[in-house]
């Protein structure tokens, strides 16, 4: 199988820079969301469509990134 329809884009999620990578392998769409700095995957999801995979991954990423605490002061 080949990797098809590979895309990457940057977005702000819960106030943090995030990179959203989506692609298709066979019939399955894969999406993972990485924090930009350092670049670790914080959420991942699969789906039958690009939209479904991204929707689930973005929901998970929003929850995880939103939990990041900033120091006061």
């Amino acid at each position, binding site marked *: 199988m080949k990797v098809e329809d*590979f895309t990457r884009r940057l977005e702000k999620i819960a106030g943090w820079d995030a990179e959203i990578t989506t692609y298709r392998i066979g019939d*399955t769409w894969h999406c993972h969301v990485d924090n930009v*700095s350092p670049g670790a*995957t*914080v959420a991942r999801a699969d789906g039958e469509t690009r939209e479904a995979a991204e929707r689930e991954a973005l929901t998970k990423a929003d929850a995880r990134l939103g939990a*990041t605490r900033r120091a006061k002061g």
Partner: protein
Amino acid sequence: MDSYTHPETLVTTQWVLDNAQKPGVVVVEVDVDTKAYDEGHVPGAIAWNWNTQLCDTVQRDIIPKDKLEKLLGDSGITPESTVVLYGDNNNWFAAWAFWQLKIYGHKEAKIMNGGRKKWLAEGREVSKDKPSPKAARYTAKAPDLSLRSFLPEVQKALQAKSAVLVDVRSPQEFTGEILSPPGLPETCQRGGHIPSARSIPWGKACNDDGTFKSPSDLRTLYGGEGVDGSKPVIAYCRIGERSSHTWFVLKYLLGYKDVRNYDGSWTEWGNLVGAPVETGTAR
């Protein structure tokens, strides 16, 4: 001509396509996200899990020698094998594996430039098959601790100003604004950095496609912060994996002689009672 000091430690995705199935070549995927391999990987590649297979799972330490020998043997790797490492997120954990292979004296270790991201972006073939390598016998060398720094050495270097400390975490971790990368668990009590450390985030060594920057760009990046190879270098991050990426760049791509990875890193220093900490930007 502008070239890396050890260009033999890097291979292209095309090289991997052309050579992955050859006898004596073993391709290993090591990801930050350990589920990535299951989606599809370089055909013929095996996977190592960084948080169960590339460490001591009882005490905090790198993989013990006997466990490494078993892992490599079970992976069909002999001391003569060419091991090609690649992974997600610009080869972050591939570099972690590379560092440990070098500690135990494996000669032919290489990193696939650009890693998993580049392989996928190029629309290359992937496989879901998990190879079952024929077991081999592997005898590792005694650990080369000149590649690694422990806490007492870092404290000594800080006091004597005998090494340049390079903090490769994100700027927000460096200043103390956050205690861990966004979305990841907090693992330390205090934020900030080791006094005198230079802030050079590890990812700055990479191009957007995940490949390493050119030698001249790397020299400009590190040299601009006073990291030019004239003094020993100690790199650190949170748990020592991002800093193994910088260690690889400084040691193998730029050829600096004395570069060590402090894998205790901020989860050690930032939890240490009484350890000096600076916050804010670099002074």
